[in-house]
């Protein structure tokens, strides 16, 4: 079999599972008693093991196997999590990630993991510091359980079954026997499992799924399942699977469940269970081909609960994986369609034929819907960037000996994939900065009368055509005096300039190139790469970053990002014969002013606008237009644009109107052209340049 065909799928899914493992381990660290999390971890680890073994990545499978062993003990309450186990598991995860990364880069995924494996084995054997009584108790319960012929449920499985009974589902105990002459028992078992999974969910099977798959069972197996299907239907359907000799389906109620789940059940209780089960069985007229088979059937196996029990199943969206290139192609094709649409609209308004106009209008509506969908396809929840942060903060906090809580909200906020790809690094930088410079050490926090655990909030939310991402901490805040001193020392501002700066402007200094407040260079941040990199990255994405800080109480970084980078709304304007587009997102309003309203302040042209005075910029002068000059006009159209808090009025010749435009780059040959951020193709096939309003505001 050619494994290469599955490689990309393997990589994708491995990454997913590693991420799940990471997240759940972190959650478990917070709530070590919650066994349902362990179930999730176990399931991911198990799948990962299976996949890597299939693909022939033995080291990967071996390490996962050791982790699985430890998790299995935890899952069955035979082992309590402690920080040593957590650290070892996290180390294991890191190793797994490194191996998968190696595979991504075309390597063999091999790595020396002996030290981690040894650590895991010592945990598994209870050597690391397991208390003796626990061990004995576990062993005792092991042996006592092993003698019992009755299938027992652990606490977790019982609660799952109980909950589903309470919520109106049916819980069944199913005992299936396969014909003696059956050659492929595992296949039949698999078919039964498939059938049950199609109807509901399997909580537990005995023997375990793995054993069943490897035909490590005699002729019969037992399954606990939750479903909505009626007993008779279920029975008929199981019997329809070829070579099934008999199937005994028993409805479970709370009482029988209770009996099944009492781990220290003595013989009497056991008998009761049997009796209860038989009674129920009798009561619901089950077809049994061979009674004696059933009574001796429940194979006595040590209660190794291997079944892939699932916590209350979250509604999983049906998704498919699509090559990103295909999405890009779709986007490009759609852009061409959009250009043609605008052209058609133009033509139909010239031709003025009713049926043509109607058709074009309909096409416009359809293509608007299509545009929404195409854009949505490219939207990715910001979670795909956020999900690696909890782990990062945990590790950073540990290495700096600080106590930090990371609170993430709005992780489901969606952003264009192109933005998502780029935003990761700036956010890492901001977060590292918050951990390193923002949050104080435990002692400092206590001295300042704060709780010893610092909190970092990471929020994402939509607002208008933008997505905001905020990084806020309750740390020491920005020391403006120190910022000013450093800025002057490093030549970012002169002393005279510094005196005139507002509080906000001082805060923004930390984003200036050549500025770094860290007095000693640490491993975490301040490696000479300042926050200016963050700002330039965000600006290059068409975004904006602001700071809000209170000394002693904390700092908030607010990153504003455009929803998408491919199609935007823009105002088309004319300067003589030339057409330009101004992004609508930065337009405050449009209006007309008379020459007499223009003020001349120290040689700079200004106008009064909404009770403030804002600068007036002549677009034709900035763009050196050959056939238009606004100084001759008595009345002139203006567009008021903004860049953060700053506004400016831009004079234009004529407004054409608002339009959806497709962003195109000018290519690699023409770069860094002042005041131009890109180009678009208009309905008539001509290229119009897109004005970068940020460049017009000094």
């Amino acid at each position: 079999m050619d494994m290469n065909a599955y490689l990309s799928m393997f990589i994708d899914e491995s990454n997913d599972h590693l991420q799940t493992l990471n997240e759940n381990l972190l959650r478990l660290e917070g709530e070590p008693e919650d066994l349902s999390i362990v179930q999730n971890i176990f399931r991911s680890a198990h799948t990962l093991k299976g996949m890597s073994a299939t693909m022939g990545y033995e080291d990967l499978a071996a390490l996962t196997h050791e982790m699985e062993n430890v998790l299995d003990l935890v899952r069955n309450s035979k082992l309590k999590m402690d920080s040593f186990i957590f650290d070892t598991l996290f180390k294991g995860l890191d190793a797994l990630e490194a191996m998968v990364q190696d595979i991504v880069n075309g390597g063999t995924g091999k790595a020396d993991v002996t030290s981690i494996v040894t650590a895991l084995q010592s945990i598994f054997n209870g050597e690391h510091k397991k208390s003796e009584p626990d061990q004995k108790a576990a062993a005792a319960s092991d042996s006592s359980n092993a003698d019992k012929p009755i299938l027992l449920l652990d606490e977790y499985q019982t609660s799952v079954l109980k909950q589903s009974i309470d919520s109106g589902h049916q819980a069944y105990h199913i005992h299936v026997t396969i014909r003696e002459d059956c050659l492929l028992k595992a296949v039949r078992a698999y078919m039964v499992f498939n059938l049950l999974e199609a109807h509901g969910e399997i909580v537990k099977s005995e023997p375990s799924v793995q054993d069943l798959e490897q035909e490590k069972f005699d002729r019969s197996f037992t399954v606990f399942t939750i479903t909505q299907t009626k007993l008779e239907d279920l029975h008929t359907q199981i019997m329809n699977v070829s070579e099934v000799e008999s199937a005994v389906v028993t409805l479970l109620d709370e009482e029988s469940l209770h009996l099944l789940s009492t781990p220290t059940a003595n013989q009497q209780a056991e008998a009761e269970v049997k009796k209860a089960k038989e009674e129920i069985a009798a009561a619901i007229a089950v077809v049994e081909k061979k009674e004696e088979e059933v009574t001796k059937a429940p194979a006595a196996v040590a209660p190794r609960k291997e079944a892939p029990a699932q916590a209350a199943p979250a509604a999983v969206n049906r998704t498919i994986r699509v090559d990103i290139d295909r999405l890009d192609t779709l986007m490009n094709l759609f852009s061409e369609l959009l250009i043609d649409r605008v052209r058609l609209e133009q033509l139909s308004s010239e031709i003025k034929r009713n049926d043509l106009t109607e058709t074009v209008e309909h096409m416009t509506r359809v293509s608007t819907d299509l545009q929404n969908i195409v854009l949505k396809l490219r939207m990715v929840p910001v979670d795909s960037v956020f999900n690696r942060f909890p782990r990062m903060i945990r590790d950073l906090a540990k290495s700096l000996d600080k106590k930090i809580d990371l609170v993430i909200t709005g992780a489901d906020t969606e952003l264009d994939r192109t933005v998502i790809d780029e935003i990761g690094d700036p956010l890492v930088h901001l977060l590292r900065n918050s951990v390193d410079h923002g949050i104080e050490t435990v002692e400092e926090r206590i001295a300042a009368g704060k709780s010893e655990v610092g909190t970092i909030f990471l929020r994402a939310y939509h607002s208008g055509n933008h997505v905001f991402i905020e990084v806020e901490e309750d740390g020491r805040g920005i020391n403006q005096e120190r910022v000013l001193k450093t800025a002057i020392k490093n030549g970012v501002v002169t002393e005279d300039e510094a005196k005139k700066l507002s509080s906000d402007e001082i805060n923004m200094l930390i984003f200036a190139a050549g500025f770094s407040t860290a007095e000693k260079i640490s491993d975490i941040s301040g490696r000479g790469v300042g926050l200016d990199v963050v700002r330039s990255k965000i600006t290059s994405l068409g975004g904006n970053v602001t700071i809000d800080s209170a000394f002693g109480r904390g700092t908030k970084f607010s990153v504003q990002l455009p929803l998408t980078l491919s199609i935007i709304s823009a105002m088309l304007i004319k300067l003589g014969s030339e057409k330009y587009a101004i992004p609508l997102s930065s337009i405050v309003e449009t209006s007309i002013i008379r020459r007499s309203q223009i003020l001349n302040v120290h040689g700079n042209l200004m106008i009064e606008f909404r009770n403030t005075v804002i600068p007036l910029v002549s677009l034709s002068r900035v763009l050196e237009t050959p056939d238009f000059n606004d100084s001759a006009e008595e009345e002139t159209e203006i567009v008021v644009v903004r860049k953060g808090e700053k506004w400016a009025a831009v004079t234009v010749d004529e407004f054409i109107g608002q339009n959806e435009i497709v962003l195109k780059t000018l290519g690699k040959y023409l770069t860094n052209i002042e005041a131009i951020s890109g180009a678009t193709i208009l309905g008539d096939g001509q290229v119009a340049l897109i004005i970068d309003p940020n460049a017009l505001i000094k």
Partner: protein
Amino acid sequence: MGEELKVIVFALAEEEYGIEVDKVRTIERMSPITRVPKTAAFIKGVMNLRGVVVPVVDLRGRFGLPEQEPTDNSRIIVVAVDDLEVGFIVDSANDVIDIDTDNIDTPPEIVGGVKAKYLHGIAKLGDSRLLIMLNLVEVLNKNEIEQLMQLEG
């Protein structure tokens, strides 16, 4: 015999030039060009090439030859070198020929007013016809454009 080389032949101010055919994406008639402000004078602007925005350079201006108004014969040759895609305005383009690499000589210092560094060599075609092979990488060298911009600015 050297290798066969397929070249597109175009005319620019009395001389014939050649570009390897695999570097040429397409040859277009003159189409509307949008001026891009604050660029060198020989950069005429950008055009729409089937949905892609492509910069257009007047090759006469690029080589410092006197520019002229486009005629019916004027063509835009769109070349792709590395990841750069640029259109060249030329006086006319109407031939594809095969030449023998053995017939390409190193160019003299200046040929028809064009500096040698923009040239790959000179190919002899028959007795009296000479074909000047362009060195596209140098023609599209951006550093030089920036220097030119500073001189002009």
